[in-house]
């Protein structure tokens, strides 16, 4: 049976749309008859490549000659990483200013309805302003879920084994790879259409990894729901020998309605020859994220009561409330568990469930609040949901206009207490947009945020960056003026009294904002770090590492690391930098997500996957020290077909998880011993 991809491909091929007769080879000859190819030497990048190649050849010759002289010395491995030390004095001051205009916010209450009919009536009176929040599309564009080093969350932690690099200490985040020391579970990339989300299981085998088996949630979902249901696996948890896969499961009706559920499918891995489902939990809406804290799993999804049909085009009778369920049983969330505002332009709901992670993910509580969730930030006590909408001023119900014209954005932040069941606490609406969970930080009952004011993310209507402080009820206590003029901050990092922002301004500044007086946050200082930062990593109290990409003329920079001294908050200064070069780092996942970074607390070093392998680095004496660079086995020069997306360490070995993008889309695992 044909899959959707082949079916649609065939339709295109048989569409009869082909180049007209006048567009044959002669057509091309006519066009190029008076043209000659550009000389490579005129292209500075290619010229640089050539020079580098020549230099490399010379270096090889010298190396061979040297080796012949020092026959008994061990030859150095070639390294494609460029080490650059930047003296603080050489950094030009970034042109960052703070304006007078403060952030504007608006509070509004969410109401509870005691019976279902009343709630349905209320929801059907609301619109679907941007209910394409089957997630938050634009938030998924390279939206880094960026970092603070952490030893992991709810599950038992073993220092000899990799943990996901989490946002908050003690809050475990799901990822595409997890290991318990003996097994490595990897959600491989299958190019989406033949099977979305195949989980390969490998035994670590003391540095000699072996493929064991594959888990395919896609098949299990089809068995449970029927052949018209699709499944996309997003990430996973591994607790000893229980593997939980988080998926979006959906079907599309002829009326274009998309019914969607977030699934947590738990597999028992005790017997790898007989892996079986040991738990199935689902809730209405598209899977957004999950967090594990204090033995509880928090599952978040975004639900559209109209099944993603625009309200104006939808049959009002089709409106539904989100359901939750286990295996085949399901029930609607009780009306009194759902909160909606009096007046809103969107009826989407963020659905949150709390499950007992110690007892087979048994459901404990659930709730739903107005506004879909774009991303979440979780502390031990509270869950914050953030969603961005196009503002009233620009938006007219047309999603493409939002995407194409870059209407200005407003954000909703919703706070839910998770310490004793799930309880709605507060809500606030702001002008502008937050990038990811690192843009929020809870500190001493206050919420600090950094955002781009009125920025759609497409760069048309930016008015600046803001840092704001809210009280525990999300009342605004203080805000900076508009800082700089750039787009939404690309990375944010908070210490006790300072917020650090990086944005995409030309100078790529590292901006420090003083938060010691939370009613008067103010611009403190800045330095130029020259490169684009995706996320910050705390090295110690005085130093942070910016992970990102080189500020290239096009958007595809190489991986770059910049170490900065923040011991004097008002005067951050660059200590050292390291840039990878050539294609090896072009697609490093660490440019996009902190979850790709591995921190080994025992060695106090970092592993970063590259396109073709990994680098192992350490911060020593104020410098970034390259310990090892490794090219994965199976990598070929045809870089489009290969990618190391994650690394994990177990004891003294580093395992590399690679996706191949060739015809078989089979993942590959490789291993190298720590140097």
């Amino acid at each position: 049976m044909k899959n959707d991809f082949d079916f649609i491909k065939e339709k295109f091929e048989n569409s009869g749309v082909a180049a007209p007769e006048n567009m044959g080879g002669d057509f091309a000859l006519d066009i190029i008859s008076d043209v000659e190819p550009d000389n490579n030497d005129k292209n500075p990048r290619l010229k640089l490549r050539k020079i580098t190649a020549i230099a490399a050849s010379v270096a090889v010759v010298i190396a061979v000659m040297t080796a012949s002289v020092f026959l008994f010395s061990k030859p150095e491995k070639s390294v494609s990483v460029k080490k650059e030390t930047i003296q603080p004095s050489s950094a030009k001051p970034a042109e960052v200013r703070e304006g007078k205009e403060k952030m504007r916010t608006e509070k509004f209450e969410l109401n509870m309805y005691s019976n279902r009919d009343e709630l349905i009536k209320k929801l059907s009176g609301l619109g679907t302003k941007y209910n394409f929040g089957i997630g938050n599309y634009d938030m998924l564009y390279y939206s880094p879920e960026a970092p603070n080093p952490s030893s992991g969350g709810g599950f038992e932690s073993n220092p000899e084994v990799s943990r996901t690099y989490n946002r908050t200490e003690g809050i475990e985040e799901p990822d595409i790879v997890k290991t318990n020391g003996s097994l490595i579970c990897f959600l491989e990339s299958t190019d989406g259409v033949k099977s979305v989300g195949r989980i390969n299981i490998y035994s670590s085998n003391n540095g000699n990894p072996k493929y064991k088996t594959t888990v395919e949630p896609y098949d299990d979902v089809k068995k449970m729901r029927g052949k018209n249901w699709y499944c996309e696996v997003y990430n996973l948890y591994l607790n000893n020998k229980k593997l939980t896969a988080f998926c979006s499961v959906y079907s599309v009706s002829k009326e274009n309605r998309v019914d969607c559920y977030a699934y947590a499918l738990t597999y028992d891995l005790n017997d790898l020859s007989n892996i079986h489902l040991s738990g199935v939990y689902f809730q209405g809406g598209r899977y957004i994220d999950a967090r594990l804290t204090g033995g509880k799993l928090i599952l978040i999804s975004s639900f559209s009561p109209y099944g993603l049909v625009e309200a104006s085009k939808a049959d009002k009778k089709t409106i539904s409330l989100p359901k939750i369920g286990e295996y085949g049983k399901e029930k609607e969330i009780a009306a009194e568990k759902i909160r909606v505002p009096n007046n809103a332009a969107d009826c989407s709901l963020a659905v949150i469930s709390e499950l007992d992670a110690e007892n087979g993910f048994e459901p404990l509580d659930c709730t739903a609040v107005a506004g879909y969730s774009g991303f979440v930030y979780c502390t031990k006590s509270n869950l914050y949901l953030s969603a961005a909408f196009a503002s009233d001023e620009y938006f007219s119900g047309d999603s493409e206009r939002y995407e194409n014209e870059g209407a200005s954005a407003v954000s909703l932040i919703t706070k839910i207490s998770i310490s004793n069941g799930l309880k709605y606490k507060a809500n606030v609406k702001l002008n502008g947009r937050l990038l990811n969970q690192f843009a929020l930080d809870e500190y001493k009952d206050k919420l600090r945020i950094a955002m781009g004011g009125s920025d759609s993310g497409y760069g048309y209507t930016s008015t600046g960056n803001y840092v704001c402080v809210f009280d525990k009820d999300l009342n605004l206590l203080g805000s900076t003026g508009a800082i700089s003029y750039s787009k939404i901050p690309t990375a944010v990092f908070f210490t006790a009294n300072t917020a650090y922002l990086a944005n995409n301004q030309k100078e790529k500044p590292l901006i420090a904002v003083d938060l010691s007086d939370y009613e008067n946050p103010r611009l403190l200082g800045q330095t130029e770090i020259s490169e684009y930062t995706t996320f910050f990593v705390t090295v110690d109290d005085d130093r942070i590492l910016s992970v990102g990409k080189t500020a290239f003329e096009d958007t595809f920079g190489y991986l770059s690391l910049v170490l900065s001294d923040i011991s004097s908050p008002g005067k951050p200064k660059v200590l050292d930098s390291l840039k990878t070069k050539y294609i090896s780092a072009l697609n490093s996942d660490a440019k996009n997500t902190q979850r790709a970074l591995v921190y080994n607390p025992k060695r106090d070093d970092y592993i970063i996957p590259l396109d073709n392998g990994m680098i192992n680095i350490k911060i020593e004496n104020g410098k970034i020290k390259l310990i090892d660079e490794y090219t994965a086995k199976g990598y070929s020069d045809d870089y489009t077909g290969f990618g190391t997306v994650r690394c994990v360490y177990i004891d003294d070995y580093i395992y590399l998880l690679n996706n191949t993008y060739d015809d078989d889309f089979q993942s590959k695992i490789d291993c190298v011993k720590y140097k």
Partner: protein
Amino acid sequence: MNDVAGGKIMNGDNLIKMAVQGDKAAFAGLYALYKDRLYRYAYFKLRNDSDAQDAVADCILCAYKNVSSLKNEKAFDAWIFKILYRSCCTAAKRQITEKAFENPDKLKIIPSDENIFVSAELCEALDALNQTDREIVLLSVVAGFNSRETGRLLKMNPNTVRSRLSRSLAKMKVFLG
């Protein structure tokens, strides 16, 4: 795929090698192997025969001028479609400014041949998608890009590309199935 260049029967790989060295006949032969796919992509993106022809012509010129920069011959497919993608984006911007306000129907013109029904059906299915999803489908299905290549062009995470592609195909199937 084979073609004749300079009187010899050549396969695609040889043509690429010769084209990279600036051989015009080889380049034209190579183009001939790809012309239907290139045109199809441009047509379904721009929905207009003359704009599609212009975009392909622009792509040919740009590709030939830069052919010596093609480092990896195996990546010719992706390389030429990237050039076409950019040509089409330029053409699409031009369409919006020059045509859309005058006569939006121009954007919906379909080819006048016996397959008119299939094309209209495909156009309808594509119209059910938002612009980004449409782009993902065209790059993946017509241009043959993998999710990572598509992601790089559209500045999106490959995982996002995959999930959006999967959902878009499912949606299109409802119209075409």
